[in-house]
């Protein structure tokens, strides 16, 4: 098993290399090792951990694809991918809660749009939607603000843990033989007619016969390294507010806005960690590093939240973050193969990549095989992974008397707000892909993710992290 963060990259050539260890790249690496057990496969990322890009900062919804553009590649891969991911999640311990969604109409125009949305859902293969009247709406969501005109009920929309999803795929891929090289930003690629020389910032070069670009926001930059100028990605920022767990009982469904000609509003959604999300904004920017939050966006979100779910904004805010969607000149994914260059671009994954990651992975593997990549054969089953549970709907270690009896470290809570035990932190530091930072530890355990944000436990968690990492903190 190879996970490297420092030192020169291996000199032995790879058969297949994936650039970008977001949820898409990790799912793809797993799919490739399933289909090409004998091949040498590398997964590279510029960051010091998997899932450090858009994959860590989204709305964490496992979509049904009811509102996709019918007939698009995105519609198809969301449809296929969501089913695959739901099953994979159940097998691997990725928390998912099928809470369902309500598209709430707040005015006559939105109300009038509901039948059209139901028809679109039907064209996307979702026949279970139905329009509910204000009385029923208020009965199921009693804390909703006044003035709702009805809603489209979309069963099947679910919430999921994005961090565990990325990590599960990466872990399984690495255990099956994929080499994961972090801190490896690709800066130049030369194609010599049968393979690529891939240069990185600081870690030397790597040779590979096939190259897949899953660099998310930077897919266009990587494309240009290979001489292609057909893709331009612009970032669309989404800022989100995470409310305290005390807000969780205020809402049962994902409350989606009804999209109209005037744009898309914000949603209110529970998280699998037991919090409530409010957001995202949609701001077209040109800086791909602009993941900071802004005062006026937070004001606007809070104003919207006060209308949708008034008591929500009285609860304390636990976290505020922003993610960047990839926008291109088309309303669809941009997945293109260039067989004579042994190269595939997985670009423009818009705002559904978490849901669709496994559908995208299978599609890209087929595309590689069709392009002449002979390493790929029929998929085999990999040994299953069991990820530590971060979800509130499933038993957490501190709740498990037998586990504590076997190992008292699971009865010793360190992060009190999130009830994370010393046993979980110890185990996270010893996993296949250990965290490289406190933020990485947070995404693996929830430590320091709670309402106190470290007031009570921050120093103690840092101490455990430093000790488990030879003082690196």
């Amino acid at each position, binding site marked *: 098993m190879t996970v490297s963060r420092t030192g020169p990259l291996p000199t032995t050539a790879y058969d297949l290399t994936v650039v970008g260890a977001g949820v898409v790249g990790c799912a793809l690496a797993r799919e490739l090792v399933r289909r090409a057990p004998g091949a040498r496969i590398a997964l590279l990322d510029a960051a010091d951990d998997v899932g450090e890009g858009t994959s860590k900062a989204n709305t964490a919804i496992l979509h049904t694809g009811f509102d996709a553009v019918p007939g698009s590649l995105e519609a198809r891969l969301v449809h296929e991918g969501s089913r695959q991911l739901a099953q994979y999640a159940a097998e691997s311990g990725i928390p998912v809660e099928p809470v369902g969604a309500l598209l709430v109409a707040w005015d006559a125009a939105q109300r009038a749009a509901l039948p059209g949305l139901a028809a679109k859902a039907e064209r996307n293969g979702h026949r279970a939607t139905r329009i509910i009247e204000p009385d029923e709406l208020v009965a199921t969501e009693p804390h909703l603000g006044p003035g709702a005109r009805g809603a489209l009920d979309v069963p099947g929309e679910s919430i999921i843990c994005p961090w565990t999803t990325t990590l599960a795929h990466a872990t399984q891929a690495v255990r099956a033989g994929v080499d994961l090289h972090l801190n490896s930003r690709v800066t130049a690629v030369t194609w010599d007619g049968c393979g690529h020389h891939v240069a990185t910032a600081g870690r030397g070069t790597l040779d590979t016969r096939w190259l897949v670009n899953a660099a998310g926001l930077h897919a266009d930059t990587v494309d240009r390294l290979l001489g292609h100028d057909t893709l331009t990605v612009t970032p669309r920022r989404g800022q989100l507010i*995470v409310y305290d767990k*005390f807000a969780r009982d205020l809402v049962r469904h994902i409350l989606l806005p009804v999209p109209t000609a005037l744009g898309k509003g914000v949603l209110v959604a529970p998280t699998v960690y037991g919090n409530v999300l409010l957001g995202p904004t949609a701001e077209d920017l040109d800086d791909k*590093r602009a*993941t*900071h*939050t*802004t*005062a006026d*966006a*937070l004001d606007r979100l809070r104003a919207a939240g006060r209308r949708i779910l008034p008591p929500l904004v009285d609860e*304390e*805010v*636990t*976290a*505020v*973050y922003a993610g960047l969607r990839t926008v291109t000149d088309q309303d669809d994914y941009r997945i293109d193969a260039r067989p004579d260059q042994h190269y595939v671009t997985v670009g423009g994954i818009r705002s559904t990549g978490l849901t669709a990651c496994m559908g995208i992975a299978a599609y890209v593997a087929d595309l590689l095989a069709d392009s002449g990549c002979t390493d790929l054969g029929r998929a085999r089953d990999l040994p299953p992974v069991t990820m530590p549970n971060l979800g509130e709907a499933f038993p957490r270690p*501190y*709740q498990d*008397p037998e586990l*504590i*009896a076997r190992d*008292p*470290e699971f*009865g*010793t*809570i360190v992060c*009190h*707000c999130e*009830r994370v035990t010393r046993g979980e932190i110890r185990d996270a530091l010893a996993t296949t892909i250990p965290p490289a*930072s*406190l933020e990485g530890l947070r995404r693996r355990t929830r430590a320091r993710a709670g*309402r*106190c*944000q*470290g*007031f*009570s436990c*921050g*120093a*103690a968690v*840092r*101490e455990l992290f*430093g000790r488990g990492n030879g003082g690196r*903190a």
Partner: protein
Amino acid sequence: MTPAVRRVDVLVVGSGPAGLAAATRLATAGLDVEVLERDQQAGGVPRHCRHGGFGTPWHPLNGPGYASRAVRAAENAGAAVRTGVTALGWADATTPALDTVGAHGHERIAARAVLLATGARERSRAARLIPGTRPAGILTTGELQQSVHLFGQYVGARAVVVGTGRIGHAAVGTLRRAGVAVAALVTDRPAAPRDLDARLRLGIPVLTRTTPAEILGSPRATGLRVRRADGRTAVLPCDTVVLTGDLAPDHDLARRGALLLDPGTRAPATDGASRTSRSGVYAIGNLAHVTWTARMAAAEGRRVGAVVLRDLGAD
């Protein structure tokens, strides 16, 4: 599986100044008193306040000295102080009984009276809605003091301190002790006498009527943008921002127990004698009063002792 129930007379949640003072008083009166503390050491917040200001003018004490005296007093009086035990929630909707977990496993403890003394915390950067990047180097005084005094961790090189209350000035002391330069103190208030001392004696600029507007830098903080009352902004270069004061009650158990809250502070509402809306449950110390000093919290702990004795008919 319903866990076996153990019974005590009085169960105190939290071993800060308030909880320990109450336990001391009640154990002295002969009751069977147990204190639960989720941390590995008892004493509450003063445990990591390595500065003075805890004793009396005649008998000055620093925080850890004060905390260990309080723990000893409770134990000498006969109270059982159990560390590493978290009170998770209520056994049912009405009785004063709590479910707990620790290294030994789960236990349900029923009491004739439950005293909630879970304290208050400083609001986080997110709770204060300070926008910007999410770098390392943003912390509250509570985390700062634990980092420096309990673990001797590296904090940073140059800090801005937000808030000039008592806790803000304590943060300045901790930073200086840890060798961190203090670039500025920032407060939305007009200048107070204590601020003059920081300015004159320590040479630290105090920016009054100024609020944090944006955190800059990634992966480590590089600065704090601040806004003056007149709307002008300025960037204070720093790798550390300490957010002080702005306390919120740690009311997790109170809310899990559906206790009535004070609409302003969101602390459990009490009747003036520390009784909450739930029979047999009391709220004391900074859980109820949020901003009190340790001495005031401890005084209330002693006072509630008499109330509980009366309510239990044990006086």
